[in-house]
């Protein structure tokens, strides 16, 4: 899906836990996430801390979308 959205001309960022699969599939802008059943959350934290984790991942995603790249890029921070 990521690749087809990109092919259609929309910049897309893939937030996912298993980065090697995302690279294999062909995503270009990749944000490593927290864990498979909760990529943008962490149930072991308080609701507030969890929302902060999520906020950071979304901020990183928006930053990735605003970054010019020429090849597949994993945005670690």
């Amino acid at each position: 899906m990521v690749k087809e959205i990109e092919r259609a001309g929309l910049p897309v960022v893939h937030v996912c836990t298993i980065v090697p699969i995302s690279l294999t599939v062909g995503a270009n802008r990749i944000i490593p996430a927290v864990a498979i059943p909760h990529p943008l959350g962490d149930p072991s934290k308080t609701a507030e801390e969890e929302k902060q984790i999520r906020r950071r991942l979304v901020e990183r995603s928006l930053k990735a979308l605003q970054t010019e790249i020429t090849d597949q890029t994993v945005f670690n921070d």
Partner: protein
Amino acid sequence: MSYRIVHYINQFYAGIGGEEKADIRPEIREGVVGPGMALKGALGSEATVVATVICGDSYFASNMEQASAEILEMMKQYKPDAVVAGPAFNAGRYGTACGAICEAVMKNLGIPAVSGMYPENPGVEMYKKSFYIVETPDSAVGMRKAIPAMAKLVLKLLKGETLGTPAEEGYIERGIRKNKFYDKLAAERAVDMFVAKLQGKPFVTEYPMPVFDRVPPNPAVKDMKNATIALVTSGGICPKGNPDHIEASSASKFGEYDITDVKDLTCDDFCTAHGGYDATYADQDADRVLPVDVLRDMEKEGVFKKLYNKFYSTVGNGTAVASAKKFGAEIARKLIADGVTAVILTST
């Protein structure tokens, strides 16, 4: 003498549990477990399954390097002559684990390793160059065919027998070229193929071309303050009750859901339809998969102009690549028509 084989399987095939147990750490047990019984039968007297390593799919996928190292150490204690992993069919995390382990076994222990997967399993694309993967159907229905083929291949490798072509042996092409002598000159063979092609007759190429499907990245978003951001997910998030009946695996459709006045995905209104991961956390708070709450905050703060008023969702669990391609293209068409600037796509 009988060769010593260590078998690798996941928590599901070990009978430990499904997604709720997918985070178990690796353990090793003496003898066969689960599909190891069929493997033992197929190997006959020539090889023995001396031990079985079991690991949760999510644990492996989330800690690939550490889990591989732990598993190698466990395997070493049983002095294997070869390792068999899976078959993983079309299970993505399981296939990735089988691939990573077999690759590590070949590299670090210097012994043969064999697995079995469906060609669309992401583990195939990642590891097919490193070792032999037997082609299997997409589900465990194919177990009875997969296990004998894997046993046959590993025995051949152990005995140092020359392997035939992928089609002859039933493994997935690894991109290895071998020199071979023919009575006919290359030019003659090429003309024969060309003539067959012109006549619409079947012919087999001697050198299949690899297929690369890469899409170059689109230019970055220049004006985020005026951008409309859309959310898409393969994590199966949908309104409670899954009104479109998106399948828990091998999804045949995607859903389009309005979030015009939704500020937060609460457990009263949203859940996941996904059957390939433990749904507990997504059902409690779907923002953990699809970050609507945070995006609403940022929209209010003016970081970007607008969160698109619909999100698109499907279940990425054994879903055919052809279906995913179709969903992606359709979703993109709708988003572009509505003036969306960029997309955040989340996967579990």
